């Protein structure tokens, strides 16, 4: 195996973002200038690389093969003086390719600059916003920021809805109203604010939580106690309203 072959084998086609990327790599590796390279030289390098990738049974994507064909055609035209003369009238495909390479190279460089910005800004964290403190149901966005894609997602969600919801069975019996009130009476007798979690205690099974929750809602409705929540999913702090409570409990 020649030195060139060894060099070619060490590069993996998976590392490239397409034929232009590979061409740029070969040009840079051989320290050639994008604007002054010789077609024949680059074409040879490229074709050799593709051939070796194929020999290794690597899956060479169609775009690479199209480029290989283009380069071969360019190279053969160079060897034919007649065709060359004809070609001068129209545009030189080599020039077009060079322009394309320059353009692609610029985008590649910009992409790597974006990569740097990405790594800086990934380390930047914005506060989550305080909507929940002021308003719960609406999420802000300017017109145009909701895309057609959101609309499509909304439709997708509707098809998801057709699957029946899972059924939940509460196995344990619910606690009675009196039982819950007794616990709450004891808990809130200190006249201070206590959390809903304290009422439920260690018994965090569904039946107990549901029982207490329903009873607390009922007592709030009856005006026996007040309940507050500082933000969604926060613990509920409860305080009893002395007059009403004493009268009824």
């Amino acid at each position, binding site marked *: 195996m020649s030195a060139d072959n060894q060099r070619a084998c060490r590069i993996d086609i998976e590392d490239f973002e397409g034929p232009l990327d590979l061409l740029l790599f070969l040009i840079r590796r051989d320290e050639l200038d994008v604007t002054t390279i010789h077609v024949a030289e680059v074409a040879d390098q490229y074709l050799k690389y593709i051939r070796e990738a194929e020999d290794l049974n690597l899956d060479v994507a169609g775009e690479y093969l199209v480029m290989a064909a283009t380069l071969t055609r360019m190279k053969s035209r160079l060897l034919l003086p007649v065709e060359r003369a004809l070609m001068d009238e129209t545009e030189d495909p080599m020039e077009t390719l060079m322009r394309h390479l320059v353009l692609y190279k610029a985008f590649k460089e910009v992409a790597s600059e974006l990569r740097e910005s990405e790594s800086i800004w990934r380390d930047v*964290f914005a506060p989550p916003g305080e909507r929940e403190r002021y308003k719960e149901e609406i999420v802000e*966005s300017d017109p145009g920021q909701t895309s057609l894609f959101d609309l*499509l997602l*909304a439709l997708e969600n*509707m098809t998801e809805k057709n699957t029946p919801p899972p059924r939940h069975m509460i196995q344990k019996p619910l606690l009675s109203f009196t039982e819950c009130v007794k616990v709450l009476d004891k808990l809130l007798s200190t006249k201070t604010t206590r959390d809903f979690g304290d009422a439920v205690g260690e018994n965090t099974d569904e039946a107990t939580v549901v029982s207490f929750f329903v009873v607390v809602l009922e007592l709030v409705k009856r005006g026996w106690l007040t309940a507050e929540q500082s933000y969604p999913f926060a613990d509920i702090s409860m305080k009893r309203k002395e007059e009403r409570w004493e009268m009824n409990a």
Partner: protein
Amino acid sequence: MLDQLARQIEALLVATESPVTLNRICELTGCGTESAEQAILRIEAELSSGGHAIVIARLAGGYRIVTDPDLGFIVGQLFEGKRHSRLSRASLETLAVIAYRQPATRAQVEAVRGVNSDSAMRTLLERDMIKIAGRQETPGRPLLYGTTSRFLEYFGLSNLEHLPRMDEMENLLKLSAEDIERMASELSEEESDQII
């Protein structure tokens, strides 16, 4: 001037989505409980001496940094104004059905969505996304709804033909961008025929 530990804790309390417990603070910064508590006091002192608009709130067994409640009258305005609010999922779904079936009755929307769409339709009317487009000549003569030009603007569409075709919608998200484009380009001629 805040030291490194205090800075780390301040950053955590600003960025977090729910209150951070003292234990978690210690775990993340590698400091002891007491150092963390003292650092929190230093942050509070620094915030207050600088006259900043944020305070450390002690909530549900944890800490987070929030804006000073005194400034609620300013901050609250950020979240007012229906013009700027994002459409809810219910509204988006309702809108999608109306956009494709227009003119559509409320009953038709509900038939597709399988749920009551009353409030979503009201929101959409208020926000000028849909409008009344006549009455259906069937018993009860229900109102018909269609989309507005505001709807097109909101979704960056230049006209209704830019909506992908209804019968392709369900599969759309499972397809590649290439497929979506191809199908969408076939849209214009058939679209108007499909409307009853």
